[in-house]
């Protein structure tokens, strides 16, 4: 009889564990908050909020004006970063190179947004741009000077930025693709250049094929 | 254990806790913590790195001064500083070679200055006089010569 109870207890505990883990990880899909965030963002497909950009050539315009019905390939960075950002931008440059020229500027534009507007003034961005071969037109680097707009954008796209007190930030990084209507379409692993490029190219091709 | 022993242990632990509360209050609420700046620098490129490429004293506010200082065997740059009485002085220091100490005798300004690390400490000089600044960490044969002065007028 006792054995019986024990066995039931074990089964109950195991069931509880399975349910707990299933709920806690979105059905064994997301074990880190980052993957959970990606999963959730792709489900929700949030709209890119209205923000005003100031780019490396001192031009100011809203995101909508910049996108102008095109796809936007997006990253978040800051120029004083010595760890991930150079890698992120370098990889972005490679994706840029892998997208067929015919689409660039016409169907898709590239944008690197700095979340450190205090230090990343247009002059700094202009210099930083040249390290990665961004042309300043079809691939622009810009800051958002309005703090509230910046916060809203980071929140909406789930970018977490924590200052470490020594002038640096710890932040999560990814490639973002914004659709023609301003919705988030894709979030891609920035370390996997080929996959990101082919995903983007496939979307563009499909569009062109229609 | 004996009752007296238990009481004694409780009292010792109590004293320890009270002591920690006092130290903690001073450190975190009154901002009297020890110099613990966490910025770093390449110790072999101090001369080329801002702000240590131009060590010196500058006025940054109402009777507030900033002293950017490098320590090296066996001296302080800049040396023989002068400030008016009542001035608050913020020292920003690093070492160009070995570990040095920065002590102003007669005050409780005392900080280790280590290669690769930027140390910061502030003090308000209320009393006029010529203060003796010395290195209090052994830094080589000339260690006993490593000193300068701060004149408060």
């Amino acid at each position: 009889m006792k054995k019986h109870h024990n066995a039931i207890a074990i089964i109950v505990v195991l069931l509880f564990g399975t349910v707990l883990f299933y709920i806690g990880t979105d059905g064994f899909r997301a074990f880190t908050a980052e993957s959970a965030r990606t999963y959730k963002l792709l489900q929700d497909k949030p709209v890119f909020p209205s923000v005003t950009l100031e780019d490396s050539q001192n031009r100011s315009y809203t995101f909508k004006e910049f996108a102008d019905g095109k796809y936007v390939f997006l990253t978040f960075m800051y120029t004083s970063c010595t760890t991930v950002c150079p890698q992120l931008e370098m990889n972005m440059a490679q994706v840029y190179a892998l997208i067929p020229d015919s689409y660039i500027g016409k169907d898709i534009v590239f944008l690197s947004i700095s979340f450190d507007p205090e230090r990343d003034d247009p002059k700094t961005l202009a210099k930083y741009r040249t390290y990665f071969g961004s042309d300043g037109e079809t691939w622009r680097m810009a800051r958002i000077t309005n703090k509230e707009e910046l916060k809203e954008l980071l929140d909406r796209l789930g970018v977490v930025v924590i200052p470490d007190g020594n002038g640096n930030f710890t932040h999560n990084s990814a490639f973002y693709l914004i659709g023609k209507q301003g919705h988030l379409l894709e979030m891609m692993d920035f370390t996997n250049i080929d996959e990101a490029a082919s995903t983007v190219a496939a979307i563009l091709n499909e569009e062109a094929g229609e | 254990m004996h009752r007296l022993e238990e009481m004694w242990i409780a009292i010792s632990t109590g004293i320890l806790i009270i002591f920690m509360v006092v130290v903690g209050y001073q450190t975190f609420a009154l901002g009297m913590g020890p110099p613990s700046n966490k910025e770093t620098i390449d110790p072999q490129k101090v001369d080329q790195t801002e702000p240590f490429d131009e060590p010196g004293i500058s006025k940054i506010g109402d009777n507030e001064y900033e002293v950017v200082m490098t320590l090296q065997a066996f001296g302080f740059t800049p040396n023989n500083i002068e400030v008016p009485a009542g001035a608050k002085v913020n020292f920003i220091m690093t070492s160009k070679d070995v570990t040095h100490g920065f002590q102003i005798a007669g005050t409780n300004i005392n900080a280790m200055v280590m290669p690769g690390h930027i140390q910061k400490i502030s003090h308000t000089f209320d009393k006029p006089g010529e203060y003796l600044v010395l290195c209090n960490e052994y830094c080589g044969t000339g260690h006993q010569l490593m000193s300068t002065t701060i004149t408060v007028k």
Partner: protein
Amino acid sequence: MKQTQALNLQQKTIKALGVNTSDAKVSLSYLSVAFLTLLIGGILGLVQGLERAGLMELPPWINYYQVLTAHGILLLLVFSTTFTIGYQYANLSHALGGLLPKVRKFAWTGFILMVIGVVLAVTMVVLNEASVLYTFYPPLAAHPVFYIGLVFVVLGIFACCIGVFINYRHWRKNHPGQTTPLLAFFAMGVFVLWFFASIGVTVEVLTLIPWSMGIVETTNVMVGRTLFWWFGHSLVNIWYLVATSAWYVIVPKIIGGRHFNEKLIRLVVILLVILNIPGGFHHQIIDPGISESIKFLHVFMSLSIAVPSLMTAFAMFAVLERAGRRKGGKGLLGWIGKLPWGDVRFLAPMIAMIAFIPGGAGGIVNTSNQMNQVIHNTLWVVGHFHVTVGMSVVMTFFGICYWLIPYLAKRKLTPQMNRLGVIQTIIWTVGMILMAGSQHLAGLLGDPRRTSYTTYGDHPTALSWVPYEYVMGIGATLLLLGVIIQVYAVINMMFFAPKGKTAFPVSEPEDGAPSAPMWTERWGLWVVLLLMVVAMAYVVPIVDMIVNAPPGSPPIRTW
């Protein structure tokens, strides 16, 4: 079964002969080295004190910092280490009924390694290739041989530790259901702490060797410093634990009393072993690169040592009072007069215990954030460790000599020698009070430590220190006199005192005292707790120091 019989036989022989000759040889060799280094180190100490006060000028072929480096290494490292090993091995041999032959081999291996190491390191100091002081903070870079010498010393320590562990384990296996004798328990505590404390400095020195040879270009200065104090501060507490063993176990017997409740004694040993290592961080309170919250945690960890120390104070007063009252001491303080003040074996450790009161109070000053800033790296600190090490520890060691050496050498302590010992104790006490007292005061006025004679261009502040430095010089002279008398006494008791049998004064528990609980012997658990405390203290700052490290420093020679 056979083994137990053999062991019993061995114990009987020891009882009959008084002492195991081969074990005594181990201890006597260590003690001889100890007092040889004490003599040299003491002379260097006086030279240094006089130079510092401007009373003497060093010849051009030697500089102050060389003398200081040698003084520090010889006294703080070699004297206390060799004395401790000699004494602890004697304790172990007595308490466990003789050392195993294997263990003696470990002790001799340790002895040879340490002698080689010390010779290598000191040679480099004499050649002026290693004027880096005993703390050898990088990026001051000594000759690689200096560091290699230190590695030998540490290996010697490890050999002695392993010897103790083996003997302890052997005894445990053969005595099921019995708790180990208190002296052996103390020895175990001392060597467990020593073993884990030495790991820090071993790692540091091993990284400094390739760096000083130029194979590795730069080193992380902060990490080196932190690893040094992991070891450096624990070392001081190891000597303290050794002294405590004599206070708890030997002193009660000498005054005709009984030792304190064994459970509390063992608890004190365990706490000292577990809590000790993170104490080293208070040497870095005003360093850059460590956040204030981490420093606060370490202030707490350093101060937690105060709890077992206060327990010791309580226990010792209780033991002294009980013994005094048993001898007829009346009234509140009448028992004090009944204590054997004329017996050097009591007088020296008693003054040592008293000295621990200001020593401990000074330690609390050094450990706390704000007060540390007033006295950091001033002569106060020098005064502090002359009170704690020079008085609390070394005077206990001296007191031990007057029974341990006759016991080991199968000789007797003569009344003349006892009188000489009392005189020595008084000279030493006066010398230390003068020297350490003036150092404390000068330190409060800002007089820096580790500095050759200087008046900083006759600056008035610096000139105000000079009178204290004179007093320091006088104290140092008295202390050298004390050293000479002590060394003479040791030689006399080793070789010239009349032959005879001296008892090993081990105190007994009070009548009807409960036996010590068996769980106190769970050394595996204590080691795990020690490691967890070390991890709590060190993982966060060391990872931070490495991950957020500045570019390293190349070796630099500034002497």
